């Protein structure tokens, strides 16, 4: 059947702002309340007031390498990060953290919602030590890793985990503000 009524319509809808509204509304509510809100099922909402004090290490850095290992009956991926800026914890040149999932042997385990990082990715890490694990553990895994991206329009570094895109510096200032209060 030939195409019917092929019409190019330059119409655009503003989904972005609507999404922002949804997420901002979600972020404003406590997780214990479900009324009149949508909550991201596998992610919830990152709350700096919660994450910052729980983290023993907060740093901005670049992923330099990764490897997968068996951890009991599970697969974990261990990442090495070159620290560009340390905000909390022992200052150092690098740190190591882990995420569940990865590819090993004949299998791979995927955890929906968890990022899979490659060398060169820039992140802000909120991590805590866990003596039972071979590396630092990001807070709630998913809330402890904040990807830094380049905005296409101007190349500015932005993060987008609090309901709207914001500059990296704005995000880090919010973290510093919470740290300064404690």
């Amino acid at each position, binding site marked *: 059947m030939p195409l019917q009524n092929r019409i190019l319509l330059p119409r655009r809808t503003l989904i972005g702002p609507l999404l922002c509204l949804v997420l901002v509304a979600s972020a404003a509510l406590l997780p214990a309340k479900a009324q009149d809100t949508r909550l991201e*099922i596998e992610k919830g909402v990152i709350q700096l007031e*919660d994450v910052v004090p729980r983290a023993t290490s907060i740093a901005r850095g670049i992923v330099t390498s990764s490897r997968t290992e068996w951890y009991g009956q599970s697969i974990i991926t261990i990442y090495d990060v070159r620290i560009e800026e340390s905000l909390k914890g022992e200052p150092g040149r690098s740190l190591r953290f882990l995420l569940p999932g990865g590819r090993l042997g004949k299998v791979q385990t995927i955890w929906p919602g968890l*990022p899979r990082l490659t060398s060169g990715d820039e992140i802000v890490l909120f991590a805590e030590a866990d003596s039972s694990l071979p590396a630092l553990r990001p807070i709630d895994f998913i809330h402890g890793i904040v990807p830094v991206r380049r905005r*296409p*329009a101007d190349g500015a570094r932005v993060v987008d985990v609090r309901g709207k895109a914001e500059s990296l510096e704005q995000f880090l200032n919010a973290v510093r503000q919470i740290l300064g209060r404690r």
Partner: protein
Amino acid sequence: MDWKPRLNLSHLSGKLIASVLLFALAATAAVDPVQGGDNLERLSIVPLEIRDIAWDRRLYDGTIGDAVSWRHNPTNKPVDVNLFEFLTAVQKGFAVWSALDDFLNMPPLIPEFLFGGFTTVTRAGAIDGINAIVWQNLGTTGILAITPCTSLTEPSTTTTGPFGGTRLPIGDGRSIPFPGPPGVTYPAGTIIDCGIAFNTNAPWVNSGGSAGFDMQSVATHEIGHLLGLSHSTVGLSTADSSDDATMIPFADNTDNLRSPKYEDLASVFRTYLRTNGLERTLGGFATIVGRIQAGPDCQNATGVSVRAYEATTGFEGSLVVETFSGSNLRQGLPHEPFDGSFELNVLPGVAYTLATTTLVPDLTAPFSSFRFNPTTIFSNTKTEESIVTDQLLEVGPLSPGEVLDVGDLGILGCTP
């Protein structure tokens, strides 16, 4: 107790349901277009490789088994959650998915899962051959549940264990208990073990409209992941959640995710038809294929949401099908594993509008793992400021079994 409810398709009109059933057994042309990308494809851990993941049909279609089992560990269950109600909610979640193919009048296409009893397994992500549904402390920042799934990255053949029983080698000298007899080879992409972790700290209820999250709604969503499905954006731009796809990544205080919508049906069919080498139009569907190109130089655009919607029910209405541009054919090409192609299975007899939503406008950026994560798989709800939707063309109505190739479609300044 109703362990096997029929699918509630009240959101579809009787006329449209009838058209599906009417054409269900219609003979269809064996057209096999390129494997378009969609929201069912999952990027593997190894960059530049993408494949569907799905359960092997032989485990539940009577070939070597009639059903796959799930088990439950009630340890850490919140005290205000009734165990019986929880088990019923989960089993109904499984049943509503498996009922989607009942009209086909053939051995099951979509996996059948049955409750296999209780377990002491505490970790949803353990690769132990037990599809465990557990309660875990997932924090207090709003995570409701999560479903880790393990699949094969290369074929594996079951063997007999040292103490009897069938085992599946998973590499590094390890193996797990596995259903079915020894000597069966399972292909790469086969899901072999999933678990679901419900957050002990979340406020759970067993209905919609109250101050908590409906267990059955969230269970049905997570079971969609367990079946191999990724997230959908259908319903995302409206506050009204009544037409939300079950695989939308958001839950509210309704029970709207309990009933898979047409988008969910199309998605699960696409996965299980494709992984089983069956005609995409089986069941009387029609298929729209094409390719998305973006930018002034018309680069193949990957991870773009492509949806077909029926005009009167609307962009977020009950007759929407969404996919994401990409392609399995791109494996091995440096930094660009996809070619921007897509494939949508739609109802015959319905005129559709094709629209794209550009989730990440930076289509020409250098390769980065972040480029993929926000698009085809996880974060396809990102709040990029410049997310835009373009209505591209109107097509149809299509005939049962028809495959319509719309060719190259341009967005963001591309005129193919």
